């Protein structure tokens, strides 16, 4: 289990408070699909993902970005319990959706970069380190049922 200091908890919450799920969710998801196009393999039902313009305009992409960020909200509120919080989601991604867990790491990095675009220098080096520790714990929890 990951141990969190008071500073780490408050930093993660402070960053999360500045994230508008409806604004940032679609941006993050579009970024993942554009920068790492092989992740499109999981979204055959999303329609036109053939060009960058199409991805940026795709409603299903935008909606899914919000779904994923809402799930991240669970982690922010259950930092001491991430493996249990995400056990079902991890199972789902492994058994049913068959998602390569390396994709979680790519998504985590895109989340950080998109937040950096928004917060700019307000995301200090120390905050970045804490935020990334948090995200990599989420990635770990999401990978936990893969066996």
């Amino acid at each position, binding site marked *: 289990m990951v141990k969190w200091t008071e500073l780490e908890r408050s930093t993660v919450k402070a960053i999360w408070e500045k994230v508008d799920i409806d604004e940032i969710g679609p941006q993050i998801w579009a970024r993942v699909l554009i920068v790492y196009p092989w992740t499109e393999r999981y979204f055959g039902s999303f329609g036109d993902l053939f060009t960058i313009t199409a*991805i940026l305009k795709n409603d299903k992409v935008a909606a899914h970005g919000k779904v994923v960020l809402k799930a991240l909200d669970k982690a922010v509120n259950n930092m001491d319990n991430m493996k249990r919080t995400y056990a079902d989601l991890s199972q789902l991604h492994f058994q049913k959706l068959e998602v390569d867990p390396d994709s979680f790491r790519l998504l985590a990095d895109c989340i950080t970069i998109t937040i950096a*675009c928004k917060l700019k*220098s307000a*995301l200090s080096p120390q905050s970045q*380190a804490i935020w990334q520790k948090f995200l990599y714990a989420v990635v770990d929890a999401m990978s936990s049922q893969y066996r």
Partner: protein
Amino acid sequence: MSLSGKDKAVVKNFWGKVAPKAAEIGGEALGRMLTSYPQTKTYFSHWADLSPGSAQVKKHGATIMAAVGDAVSKIDDLTGGLSTLSELHAFKLRVDPANFRILAHNLILCMAMFFPGDFTPEVHLSVDKFLQNVALALSEKYR
């Protein structure tokens, strides 16, 4: 994942905007890498101060970004253009190539931070590919 004509054009165009802030971005990126990925500190144990903003970190970050800028100018032949640097990293510095990806992530993050409007997903894609190719060229002489 080799660079298309479009990737090269995007990278050169974006670099034109980044160049005036290159030294600052490099210093910032190196500081963030050392903070977020403490394993990278093992390569800099000879420095007195590894905190972001320290003189040594800023100076070395600028050096690195100057080399990235040089790579942009040699984008049509990265392996040839970065051959000497590859020898340096392979035989003298012996940096594990896994760290090139870590540095690339922090360079990208800083470019996004400094130029949020210009660092669109499309630019991000080409820059990510470019840095991956730079890493490959740097690893060329390793074995």
